[in-house]
């Protein structure tokens, strides 16, 4: 019964999908994308019809052979129940399953964990906001209470930060608070106010011509530069950061007044400036240590990311540079729409993005797992009993890690050019004719295979090192007991070595996968993204067959010489955000599938 209904519902959904596909085509041009969508629509519709037909057939059969089917369905239900597809099994129940059933159970439970995990994540986020809101309400109540119940020193401190501290003898703290307030007020009057007020518009007057009176010459038309959108956005963001920081400090200031009053009331002494300084290297040492690194991260990582996220909602490019030529402004979700459109001014952004994303994922998959397994294999070869000169083999490989990648990558890239060393060898050995030299970097598929192979060459020494370290850490008694139990070499590998490696390096594999998605150096230095994909190049730079999202992003930001579009920074930002989303989703899924997220305290 259920499968029939499911089939029919799915079938009924298909026309809706087809309709959605239809809607993505904004203009009726004859581009490949449009053809593709048309084709897809037909495919989807056909599938829908088939599904409905199958569903009806199924239903009829169900009704005809009702009695038997019901019993069978019940059995199926029981079977599913036993394998545990729709519930968690207890350990004992799980152990009773046979091998295949265990695999099915694990897979399905893993898949189930993804939506559950995602839902939990969403709930957590919701809870976070709820708690944050509650927290703010509580803070406000506390602030009000402090004001009502506080003495006059505290009350003055609400306006003059640090006053209470100074009045109660904590001069050092007080002066710092006061200083911050003075700086803040000064900044807001001199700069912050202007930038903040311009933030919604990103500038009103762009570069324009003006008649200027030059002494001795008369009035001349000159170009005058107006607002600077870039600076408005940048300093606007910074000002908001600053305001938040000041509000927080103000809150700390209020709180300190409260605690100071309480301490004084209970007859104890307040901490002096000297005590404060002393606690900077003791119980508050972490604040001292974290101050500089955190500031660095805030200014050089967080701020640029916030800025660039905002840029994705503007039309900032090297042409709309916001100062020299034209102001830029907010455009809402326009850029996101562009990148998911089949046709904007004759360019198929969606297809370009889709192709590059696909290749990025394929690349990351192969780059990660070929390196991983071959690295383990090499480590095991060197570790094999009876192999001499282990250190020498290892050192040869390790040495290559030390050579800066740009040297090896650039050199290897040249080795495989048409007239490079490799073709030269083949010609000299008489394997190929000079005319048939292999065009490694000119053939899309070959180039893709080559970057994966060369990446293996680059990555194996590193993985070999990691694998060696872990292999040596596998307790020898595991192997001994396996041998006594009669496990062969392959069994030992598949039952002990590999599970152990996978368990320990699970998180590493994840970071390595996402790292490879953003592996700029290997791709850019080897192929520069090429060979050029003529079909996809154009508005968003020259796109090649080996381009990853990250190299595409780089190309867009450096294609300032393009006369019509310039460097489309806004597009680069959109791509950056999409890369983040892809990486985050993959990480979430993998963490959902990992048996247990390791507790960091386990290593203590």
């Amino acid at each position, binding site marked *: 019964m259920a499968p029939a209904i499911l089939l029919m519902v799915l079938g009924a959904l298909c026309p809706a999908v087809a309709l959605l596909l239809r809607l993505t085509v904004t203009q009726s041009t004859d581009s490949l994308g449009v053809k593709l969508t048309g084709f897809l629509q037909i495919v989807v519709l056909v599938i829908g019809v088939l599904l409905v037909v199958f569903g009806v057939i199924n239903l009829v059969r169900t009704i005809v052979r009702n009695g038997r089917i019901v019993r069978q369905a019940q059995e199926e239900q029981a079977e599913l129940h036993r394998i545990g597809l729709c519930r968690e099994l207890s350990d004992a129940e799980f152990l009773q399953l046979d091998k295949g059933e265990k695999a099915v159970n694990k897979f399905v439970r893993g898949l189930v964990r993804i939506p559950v995990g995602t839902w939990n994540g969403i709930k957590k986020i919701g809870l976070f906001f709820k708690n944050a809101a509650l927290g703010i309400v509580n803070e406000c109540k506390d602030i009000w209470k402090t004001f009502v119940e506080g003495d006059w020193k505290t009350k003055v401190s609400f306006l003059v930060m640090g006053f209470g501290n100074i009045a109660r003898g904590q001069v050092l703290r007080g002066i710092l608070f006061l200083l911050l307030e003075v700086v803040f007020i000064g900044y807001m009057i001199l700069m912050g106010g202007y930038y903040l007020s311009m933030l919604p518009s990103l500038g009103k007057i762009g570069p324009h011509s003006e008649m200027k009176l030059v002494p001795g010459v008369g009035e001349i038309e000159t170009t005058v530069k107006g607002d600077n959108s870039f600076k408005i956005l940048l300093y606007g963001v910074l000002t908001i950061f600053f305001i938040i920081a000041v509000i927080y400090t103000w809150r700390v200031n209020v709180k300190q007044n409260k605690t100071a009053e309480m301490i004084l009331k209970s007859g104890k002494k307040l901490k002096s400036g000297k005590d404060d300084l002393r606690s900077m290297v003791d119980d508050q040492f972490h604040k001292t240590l974290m101050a500089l690194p955190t500031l660095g991260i805030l200014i*050089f990582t967080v701020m640029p990311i916030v800025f*660039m996220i905002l840029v994705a909602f503007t039309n900032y490019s090297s042409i709309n540079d916001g100062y020299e030529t034209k102001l830029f402004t907010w455009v809402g979700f326009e850029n996101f729409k562009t990148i998911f459109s089949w046709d904007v001014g004759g360019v198929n952004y969606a297809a370009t993005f889709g192709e590059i994303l696909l290749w990025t994922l394929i690349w990351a998959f192969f780059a990660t797992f070929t390196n991983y397994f071959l690295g383990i294999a090499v480590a095991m070869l060197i570790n094999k009993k009876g192999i001499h000169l282990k250190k020498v083999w290892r050192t040869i490989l390790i040495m290559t890690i030390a050579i800066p990648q740009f040297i090896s990558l650039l050199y290897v890239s040249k080795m495989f050019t048409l007239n490079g060393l490799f073709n030269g060898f083949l010609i000299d050995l008489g394997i190929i004719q000079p005319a048939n030299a292999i065009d490694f970097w000119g053939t899309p598929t070959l180039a893709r295979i080559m970057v994966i192979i060369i990446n293996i060459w680059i990555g194996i020494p590193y993985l070999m090192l990691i694998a060696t370290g872990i292999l040596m850490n596998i307790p020898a008694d595991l192997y001994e007991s396996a041998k006594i139990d009669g496990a062969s070499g392959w069994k030992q590998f598949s039952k002990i070595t590999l599970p152990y490696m996978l368990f320990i390096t699970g998180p590493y594999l994840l970071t390595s996968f996402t790292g490879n998605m953003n592996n700029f150096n290997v791709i850019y230095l080897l192929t520069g993204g090429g060979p050029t994909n003529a079909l996809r190049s154009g508005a968003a730079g020259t796109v090649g067959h080996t381009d990853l999202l990250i190299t595409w992003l780089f190309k867009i930001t450096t294609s300032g010489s393009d006369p019509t579009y310039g460097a489309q920074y806004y597009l680069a930002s959109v791509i950056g955000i999409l890369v983040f989303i892809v990486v985050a989703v993959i990480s979430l899924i993998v963490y959902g599938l990992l048996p247990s997220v390791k507790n960091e305290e386990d290593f203590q």
Partner: protein
Amino acid sequence: MSKQQNSMKQHMGMKAASRISNTVVYIILVAMSVIWLIPFVCIVIQSFRINPTGMTRYLLVNPEAALKPGLEIRFGFDNYIRLWNSDFPRWYLNTFIIALVVAVVQTVIVLCMSYTLSRFRFKLRKPMMQFMLILGMFPGMLSMIILYQVLKDLGLALENAVPGLILVYVASSGMGYYVSKGFFDTIPKSLDEAARIDGATRAQVLFKIILPLAKPIVIYTILTAFMGPWGDFVFARYISNGRIAAYNVAVGLQSWLATDTMTGQNYTMFCAGGVIVAVPVVILFMCLQRYYVEGVTGGAVKG
């Protein structure tokens, strides 16, 4: 395994079997070593080549061709001398300064960060670590555009790219705390506690107890921090933006290769430059290899 096979194996003796498999392994290892080393051997040979039209490949496979008049290959130090007179010393100095400063400052910052996150339990600790994890998911290149504009405003880009690059490298180095935090986590906390009861402040615990015990990871951090700038290409290129005097070696050598054909002079000079860049780094690396291995394996194990 069938009985027949079993008896055969006994007949042959386990030793013979393992000898065969070992021979296979040796062949694989030798082949691998050749594959891994050949590009580097070629770079060194090419760096000594004088006449740019000759082909190194002849030397290796077809000696007669190499000796053909007009095509014969001659070797000498010409490339290195030319290198000395080019922009290369400038680039080398740039990179060296960057690497040195970054090695020092980055190590300090990373150690501060990882010690704090390993040893202190404060309210913002977990959120901070999660936040940094999320930050790490954004492609770093994204921030290039704005950093370039800001550095340009500050006068730290273009001709002055060196201090600008240092700032960029150093500023976000707090994010790279994973490996050393993992190492700190393995130092028993009771040592800290014993020292604190013995009368040490938190700072004294760090300097007198933890740092002396963390020597391997300190060296690892310095080493990786020092090696990073030698290979950095993207930021260096973007921030120097065509100002040759402010290039680092990676950008400089790449610019040679990009503007020249296979047989041109720049190519052999690139090789010579590569040798000069690689040799000191490799020597340093080999001396400190032990610490590097320790850091890498530990880091992967701890995730």
